[in-house]
C-alpha cells in the first residue's frame, strides 16, 4: 500500500521540482517587490500592489487562462520568448512552474513585505551614516533582520506551488511526466475506477511533504530569531 508506483513517483518528483523551481525563481523578484512596496513611494504603487495580489483573489482558472493568453505559443510574451530565447511554457513543466510561481507570489510578497516593514528604519539610517551605500544597507541590515519573514514567505510560496491545481491545469493541462503534479494526479486517480489506493498514497505523500516543510520552516525561523535577537 505504501510503496509508490513509477507513475506516482514521477508525479511526486515532478511536483517537487516544479515547486522548488517556482519558489527559487520567485524569491529575488519577491524580495525586490516587497522592498519597493515596504520602503518606497512611487507613482503606480497601488496598481503594482493590486496586480501582485490579483492571483490571490481571482479564480485560479482565470489566472491560468490569462497565462495561456499571454504565455501560450501564440501569446504575445510566449511567442516572443519561444522565438528569441527558445523558452517554451505551453504544455511544459516550465509552464507549470510559472503558474505555480504566479499563484504563490502574493503570499511570498506579503510575508516578506511585512517583515521588511517591521525592520526599524532608524537602524538603516545608522548603517547609512556608517558608510554603507543603499545596497549595503539593504544587504547587511534590512535583509538579515527580515529573514524570519523571508523564510515564512518561501514556505508559503512552496506550499502553494506544491498544491496548485486550477491555474496549472488550465495553462499546461495534465500530461503525465510533463505537467501532471501530485494534485493533478490525485484528481486523475479519483476519476478512474481503480484509482482509490493510488489517490490515497499520493494524498499521504502530499501531507508528509507539507508537514516536513512546515516543521523545517518553524525550525529555521526559530534559529533565525535566535541569531537576530538571541541572548548569547
Amino acid at each position, binding site marked *: 500500500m505504501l510503496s509508490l508506483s513509477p507513475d506516482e513517483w514521477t508525479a511526486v518528483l515532478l511536483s517537487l521540482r516544479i515547486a522548488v523551481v517556482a519558489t527559487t525563481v520567485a524569491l529575488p523578484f519577491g524580495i525586490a517587490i516587497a522592498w519597493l512596496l515596504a520602503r518606497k513611494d512611487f507613482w503606480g504603487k497601488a496598481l503594482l500592489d493590486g496586480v501582485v495580489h490579483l492571483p490571490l483573489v481571482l479564480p485560479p482558472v482565470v489566472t491560468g487562462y490569462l497565462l495561456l493568453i499571454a504565455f501560450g505559443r501564440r501569446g504575445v510574451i510566449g511567442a516572443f520568448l519561444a522565438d528569441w530565447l527558445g523558452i517554451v511554457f505551453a504544455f511544459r513543466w516550465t509552464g507549470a512552474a510559472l503558474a505555480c510561481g504566479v499563484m504563490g507570489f502574493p503570499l511570498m510578497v506579503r510575508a516578506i513585505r511585512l517583515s521588511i516593514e517591521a525592520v526599524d528604519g532608524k537602524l538603516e539610517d545608522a*548603517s547609512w551614516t*556608517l*558608510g554603507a551605500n543603499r545596497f549595503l544597507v539593504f544587504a547587511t541590515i534590512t535583509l538579515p533582520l527580515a529573514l524570519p519573514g523571508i523564510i515564512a514567505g518561501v514556505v508559503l510560496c512552496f506550499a502553494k506551488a506544491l498544491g496548485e491545481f486550477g491555474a496549472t491545469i488550465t495553462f499546461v493541462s495534465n500530461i503525465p511526466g510533463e505537467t501532471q503534479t501530485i494534485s493533478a494526479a490525485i484528481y486523475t486517480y479519483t476519476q478512474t475506477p481503480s484509482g482509490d489506493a493510488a489517490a490515497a498514497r499520493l494524498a499521504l505523500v502530499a501531507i508528509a511533504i507539507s508537514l516536513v516543510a512546515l516543521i523545517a520552516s518553524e525550525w529555521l525561523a526559530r534559529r533565525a530569531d535566535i541569531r537576530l535577537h538571541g541572548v548569547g
Partner: protein
Amino acid sequence: MLTVDVEKQLGAFALRVKFETRDGVTALFGPSGSGKTSIINMVAGLLTPDRGRIMFGPTLWFDAAGGVSAPPHRRGIGYVFQDGRLFPHMTVAHNLDYGRRMYRLPREPDEQARIVAMLDIAHLLERRPGNLSGGERQRVAIGRALLMRPRLLLLDEPLASLDAARKREILPYLLRLRDETVPMIYVSHHAAEVKRIATAIVRIDNGSVTGIGGAELLSTADDDALA
C-alpha cells in the same frame, strides 16, 4: 571647521540656522523641540534642507542652489544616536567593526584596542546588543562611531535615555572623548552636561540660533543631576 547655513520647513515648524564650529566640542544647546536633532540630521545628510549650504572645511556637503548633496555614506561623519541603534543581529565586535568595513578602511588593531580600552568595553565584545545595559550600549555606540575614523563626530543627547546613575557612569567616557582629535558636535538640553563637556556653545531656541559663545549662554536655573 563646519559651516552651516540652512533652512528647513518641518510641518508648521520653521528651522533657520546659521553657525560655524571649530575644533573641540561644540554644544548645540536648547530646549527639547527646538530643532537641534533636525540640524545635525541635516549635517549628517539624513535630512535634506530646503535651502542653504553645509560645508566642512573646503568640502561642500550640501548646496541647494548648486544641487549638491553628498549622501551620508560619503560624508565620513560618526553619529552617536540618542537611542544607540546598535545592530541587534551582530555581536558588539561586529558592530564596532561595521563602519571600518563599510568605508573599506584598513584594520588598525592598536587603534581599535585603544578605543575599546578607553570605553571599557573589552568584556562585551562577544555579546549581543540585546543583553547590554543602557550605559554599555551607549559606550559601544560611541566606539562604533569613533572606529570608522570620522572627520566629525555628532552626539545626539547620548545621555538622555539613561537614568542619573548611568549618566554618571558615562560622563567620564565623554570627557575622555574631548582628548580625541576629532571635532565634535554635542546636542543637549542639559546645561550641567554642556558646561562640563563643551568648548563652545551654540544656543538654539525655536528653530533659530539665539546665541554663540561660551558658558555664559547657560542659564543658572538648569538642573544639577550631574553635579
